[in-house]
């Protein structure tokens, strides 16, 4: 397994939304870049995620298109990625806003943005189930949402296993067994 992990932030370039984001977040922007598709990508500290979401809502983004995580298992980090999009504002229709935050893998906790963007609720519940990230403030943490209630549970300890983590082993009861 010598595959190089993907970069956490694409190379920086000028972007029309960058000034607005920097104005709203102040010094909280750790690094920024522009994806090959031309969307702005901003890396923020994990305790500034709610401010970033509020800033995105004030800029006119009205829903969370995607909320997921990337497992950097060699570094012991999770990169939680939020993608904001807009249906209503015509000038933002061609834009997506990526906001990323890096959290430690052994204590994965991050603030929930489900009360700012209600469309993030299901994504947070799925991300919690697949990666074991605790979204603090979401009332559905610790419950099964997509997975079977009997599936992906450690037989010895009874604790849930998280199937999209890189160190998850395909269990014996699956079709490969």
């Amino acid at each position, binding site marked *: 397994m010598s595959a190089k992990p993907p970069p956490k932030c694409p190379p920086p370039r000028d972007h029309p939304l960058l000034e607005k984001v920097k104005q709203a977040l102040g010094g909280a922007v750790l690094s920024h870049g522009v994806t090959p598709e031309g969307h702005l990508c901003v890396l923020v500290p994990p305790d500034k995620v709610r401010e970033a979401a509020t800033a995105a809502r004030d800029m006119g983004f009205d829903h969370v298109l995607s909320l997921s995580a990337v497992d950097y298992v060699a570094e012991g980090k999770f990169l939680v990625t939020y993608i904001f999009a807009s249906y209503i504002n015509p000038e933002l229709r061609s834009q997506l806003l990526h906001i990323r935050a890096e959290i430690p893998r052994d204590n994965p906790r991050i603030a929930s943005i489900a009360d700012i963007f209600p469309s993030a609720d299901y994504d947070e519940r799925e991300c919690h189930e697949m990666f074991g990230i605790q979204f603090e403030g979401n009332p559905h943490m610790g419950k099964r949402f*997509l*997975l*079977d209630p*009997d*599936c*992906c549970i450690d037989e010895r300890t009874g604790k849930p296993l998280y*199937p999209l983590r890189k160190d998850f082993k395909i269990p014996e009861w*699956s*079709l*490969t067994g």
Partner: protein
Amino acid sequence: MLESLRERIRRFLLKTLRLEILFKWGIRWSLWPVHLVTSCCGVEVAHTAGPGFDAERWGVLPFHTMRQCNVILVEGTITRKMARALRQVYEQMPEPKYVIAMGACAARGGLFWNSYHVVQVDTVVPVEVYIAGCPPTPEAVIRAFIMLHNKIKGRPGPYVEPVRVDIAPPKPPARPAPQQTQQAPAA
């Protein structure tokens, strides 16, 4: 007493009056499948039931509730969560009932063969006919129903003989032996 009398009447009707043939004929020409569309195979079943292929020529009428149907067409991947629903649907159906597993996902997981959440259909319900393909063509679905006809009839076949295809890569042509090149003598 009543039970044994009923059993004797039943046996008389089925065996002596040869009503079993009539029953089987009736079942054979009214195979109504209930869709369990969990993947893209449902599109092919829609083709099968449409006017082009017209599966009603063989008595196959896709219907919407399992309590009026006698065939489940499992069209796609069955996850562990969906397996509960499949078992419930199967147990709600009246006898006689049959299961057709359609596509690579239902047979052996298909694309999701090493997933943490996918089960094989025959570990959940007994499967009568498998259809190969990803997704299978409407002709293959009709062929599966004809195989089910013959299975109900008690006569095996006509199974489709598998065609052996040699997919091994062709051997490269024999290369001429490398010629001994004259090496310049070391000075």
